[in-house]
């Protein structure tokens, strides 16, 4: 790479940095550019410019992403020149309701992403978006009266938050995802599982077995304390590895296949 090209790339890196930095940090963009120009060695100048770009880019991109919310989260929060974290923190302290709404939208978005990945039907996604809309509407209605000092609205909001915090299920609740339906035509099923399976939680086969049973499908289940995931024919100290083939044979005889 020729010296002129290296110099041109260094200049390009500096200009990119300047174009990305928020107005409050523009002087630092110029500082990097002028400093790079002062370095006599072309390679070192290029490395200096690229290093600065990489170091400051996260801050610049974060400012760009937050810029549309600048008027929303606080007056001049992003132009005061302080550290970004402190600015966001200060703005959050001043506008707790905005933070709450942002958290609600974020959590619903994460939930939608999870359900989309898990293959939930579209109506479940719509229901969750609807819940967010209902929540925001209630907040808009009740929140306004709270500002005028009506305490019942405050307690209503607290109670609503409380119901959200209590999922109403214990840790060992075993249910299939609500959109998974088990057909009564499913074949007789044998489930062999180890409690210490690190991949598939023991609640999954239990939920499956209960759902099959509810649908009237015969289910046989053998559970072991140890065995891990994907135990096979290779013998280990765990009884599951030696016992399961005979259990399959016995089960096949039970359902009349052998």
């Amino acid at each position, binding site marked *: 790479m020729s010296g002129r090209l290296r110099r041109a790339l260094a200049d390009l890196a500096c200009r990119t940095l300047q174009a990305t930095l928020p107005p409050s940090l523009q002087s630092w963009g110029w500082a990097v*550019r002028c*400093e790079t120009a002062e370095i006599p060695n072309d390679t070192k100048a290029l490395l*200096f410019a690229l290093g600065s770009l990489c*170091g400051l880019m996260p801050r610049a991109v974060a400012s760009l992403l937050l810029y549309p919310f600048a008027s929303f989260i606080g007056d001049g929060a992003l132009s005061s*020149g302080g550290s970004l974290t402190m600015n966001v923190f200060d703005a959050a302290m001043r506008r707790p309701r905005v933070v709450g709404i942002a958290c609600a939208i974020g959590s619903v978005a994460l939930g939608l992403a999870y359900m989309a990945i898990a293959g939930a039907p579209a109506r479940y996604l719509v229901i969750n978006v609807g819940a967010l809309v209902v929540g925001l509407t209630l907040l808009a209605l009740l929140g306004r009266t709270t500002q005028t000092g009506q305490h019942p609205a405050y307690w209503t909001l607290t109670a609503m938050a409380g119901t959200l915090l209590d999922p109403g299920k214990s840790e060992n609740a075993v249910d299939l995802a609500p959109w998974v339906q088990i057909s009564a035509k499913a074949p007789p099923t044998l489930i062999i599982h180890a409690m210490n399976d690190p991949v598939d939680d023991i609640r999954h086969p239990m939920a499956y077995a209960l759902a099959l049973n509810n649908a009237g499908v015969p289910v046989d289940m053998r559970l072991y304390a140890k065995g891990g995931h994907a135990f096979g024919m290779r013998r280990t100290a765990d009884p599951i590895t030696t016992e399961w083939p005979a259990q399959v044979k016995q089960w096949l005889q039970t359902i009349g296949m052998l």
Partner: protein
Amino acid sequence: MILATLLDARGQWSHGYELAQLADVKSGTLYPLLIRLEAQGYLEAEWQQPTEGGRPPRHAYRLTASGVQLAHDNPPGQTTKPVVRRREATV
């Protein structure tokens, strides 16, 4: 390390590239630190006009009184002293 290097300057102005060399840090580490130090009032920054024509101005830095105190309170650990000889920034 940056603080120690700035403290070594004893109130003289330093420049970015020089600081990066003396403190043995990359520019990507240096500038975010300088920005934070300046925002918190530990660092003073000024633009210096070039002594000869055709050269760009330079951004120069030195510790404020609270910055000197901060540097004294936070001496660098068992790091080796940089071998590069210090060259004072020219105004």
